[in-house]
């Protein structure tokens, strides 16, 4: 059984290719984080190597070993983690050596006689050398070898890599599908499912991990409260906050990026409230505050805030001084009367 949620069309395509024996030797899955790219890849690897009739069964020996990452012919290549030391930043690129090791393995016959599946997670993180050294193998691999490349941003891949793969895009899931899936498969009560479905922004994987871990959702709402308080703060408090955030950035870039993403959803919500489109807002738990803020900010001020958050993200990506960039952002966030907030 294919486990991925809400991507019926893609599953249909892969199923047909599989049953007609016309699978391509290279696929490129493109979609936002946590949307199900890895689940899909694992399922495809299972289908190729499954021992029972209804492929993939997810129950046979082979399928279970693939799911747990213990299958000899399914190889996962991703950013190398420095797991021993949490403080050390993770590697920034997939190195050419990782690809060369893989190329050696690919030229051997599959150990278990089925298909060799190479999954490259975060294909956009391949270094220039790594991507180039993959080209020839990706174009004409040995028989019974399938490459699955997973990427968030298609644009940062080499055009020569893209052109060698069948490109399959996984769009973010509409929130009602996420909500239904959460209620049916995980038995979440409707109000919580609705909250998670909106908060996950179409990345169902995030919602699923938030089911078991209360902390994720709590942290999110805390960050939101911070932001609301920040809108009412004066310049000194804001600069203090920017300094904190900048310190955090040097330790954990991803967390700060996610925080800014969250801010974007907030300002987008304000825009939607202004436009009277309440059904699409993300942070519906804070609807009251949203209404008040929207009444106090002009539409152009909200647009300006969104743009400066985007600019800041871009600057941080380009290694600008984080503190300076964040302070500029603080100056551009519209001021909202604090008293109004206290009433809620």
């Amino acid at each position, binding site marked *: 059984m294919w486990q991925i949620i809400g991507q019926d069309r893609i599953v249909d395509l892969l199923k047909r290719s599989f049953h007609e*024996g016309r699978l391509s030797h290279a696929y490129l899955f493109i979609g936002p984080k946590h949307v199900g790219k890895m689940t899909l890849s694992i399922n495809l690897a299972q289908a190729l190597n499954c021992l029972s009739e209804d492929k993939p069964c997810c129950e046979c020996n082979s399928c279970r070993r693939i799911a747990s990452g213990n299958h000899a012919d399914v190889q996962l290549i991703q950013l190398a983690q420095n797991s021993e030391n949490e403080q050390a930043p993770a590697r920034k690129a997939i190195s050419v050596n990782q690809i060369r090791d893989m*190329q050696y393995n690919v030229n051997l016959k599959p150990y278990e006689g089925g298909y060799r599946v190479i999954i490259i997670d975060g294909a956009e993180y391949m270094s220039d050398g790594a991507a180039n050294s993959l080209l020839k193998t990706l174009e004409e691999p040995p028989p019974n070898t399938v490459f699955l490349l997973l990427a968030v941003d298609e644009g940062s891949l080499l055009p020569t890599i893209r052109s060698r793969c069948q490109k399959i895009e996984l769009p973010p899931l509409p929130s009602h599908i996420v909500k239904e899936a959460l209620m049916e498969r995980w038995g979440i009560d409707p109000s919580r499912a609705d909250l998670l479905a909106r908060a996950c922004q179409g990345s169902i994987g995030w919602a699923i991990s938030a089911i078991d871990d209360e902390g994720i959702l709590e942290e999110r709402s805390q960050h939101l409260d911070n932001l609301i308080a920040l809108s009412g703060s004066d310049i000194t408090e804001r*600069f203090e906050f920017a300094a904190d955030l900048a310190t955090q950035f040097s330790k954990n870039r991803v967390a700060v990026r996610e925080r800014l993403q969250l801010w974007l959803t907030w300002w987008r919500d304000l825009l939607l409230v202004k436009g009277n489109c309440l059904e699409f807002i993300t942070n519906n738990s804070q609807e009251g505050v949203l209404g008040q803020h929207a009444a106090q900010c002009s539409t152009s001020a909200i*647009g300006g805030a969104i743009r400066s958050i985007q600019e800041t993200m871009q600057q941080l990506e380009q290694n600008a001084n984080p503190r300076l960039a964040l302070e500029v952002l603080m100056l551009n966030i519209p001021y909202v009367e604090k008293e109004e907030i206290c009433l809620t």
Partner: protein
Amino acid sequence: MPEVFYRKWRPRTLSEVVGQEPVTRTLLNALITGRVAHAYLFFGPRGTGKTSTGRILAKAVNCLQNASGEPCNECAMCQSFNEGRAIDLIEIDAASNTGVDDIRDLKEKVNFAPNASKYKVYIIDEVHMLSTSAFNALLKTLEEPPAHVIFVLATTEVHKVPATITSRCQRFDLRRIPQAAMVGRLQYICDEEGINIDPEALALIAKSATGSLRDAENLLEQIVVYHGANVDLQQVRSELGLTGDARIKELLKSIISKDIQSGLTIINSVANDGLDLRHFNRELIDALRAMLLVKAGADDATGLTPDEIKEMKAIAADISLEEVSQSVKLFSQADFRYSPQSTLPLELALVDYSVAQSESKPEPRAEVKASSQPRKETVKAVVQDEPQEEVAEPSVPVVPQRIPISETSSEIEHIQQHWGDFVKACKGAVGQLDALLRGSCKPVSIEGNTLVLGFYAKSKFQKNKVEDSKYSQAISGKLEEMFGTSYDVHCITIGEENRPVPPPAKENPLVREALAHGAEIIGEEYVR
């Protein structure tokens, strides 16, 4: 696992290499006259036939019954090349073997005579990835190789290849494949594979492949696998993420009428259907461009049917040329780089356009509403309500509305409570009234019809100013405006000890930061 189209239908003769006539004709003439060079460099974007041409060349020089220059594909030699088992065709992945040692290894083996065929052919693919020393190690061999060796270098990035390498090779630039040639090749593949497909659908595939045949073949295969052997235009459109016109036109109408609500609804419903918003935006821009052309009177340039032009004219009746060009600009600037799947860029473009248009039209300013008004209002109204100053200085909300006295507090307490708001509201009144009042005084008591303002001892300057009738009258006026009663103003001096204590400067993070950088406090003054 059968081979994918782009491997199965790799060209096997020079005439099958489509869209590269200058290159193939030159090579064919060289083969016929026996003037084959010892080193070639093929350069071109992805999927234009660099490796394929190299392989055909290798096959042609070794073909046993080469009559017309083309390989025969029938003799034993040609077949061994086609099946990839020819021992004298050495294909090197330069991106995986980048080092100087790999080239030294190659140089050692170059001198041995070919095993079975006439020429030994080295195809060095992705040659741009060789290291500098590897390139330099290759130079001498490339210039004067043994008579039985032909080098074929292929790359997508010719600027990374040193000039000393390029000058030793015959360089061929392969162009992007023209659409017509690509359609012809795709049609041939479809005929051979038994696929029925509309010519328009093939043209659409060719167009979206932007000159790379491999991209086109990949796309064709994906469509054929999903839809079976009979493919029509509509299926190709949906496969490419093209949405058709229905919702594009709807959104176009929302843009023209500046109806943010319906516009946002359309954008989100498109996203919820899982369509690619980048494609959607591209189509929207096409539609806006068509409107621009129709508006400007260049109907023929749109490429639309007369009916469509008529419809477009009807839609565009209420909008000026200037506005259309503004909207084209904003939507084509929508930046999907940082959030490729998000609706935000489109939403922002829509709102920007609507706001810009409503602001530029001077409409009568509506009555100022209290900030507690219900938020279910249209954006148009909100935009009109906001005074211009607020855009320039959003941190100073002007609160000119009348504040009713609550039952529980006395008159003076009420004024004291709202004194801060009152001072803010004085901004823009006579002189710099708000600056005079801020932090220099506080309302002390009300005696009959007179409001007594207590000035702190050090604020003598402000007191003298305010006692001037020009200012005290202005204050009276403002007081009536805000609190509903007209007061005379009387100023007294109260002790400095009554001044609210400012927070110690050292607690301010900016001051702390300055101190950390070596600043010294030489005096404290609280400005507020």
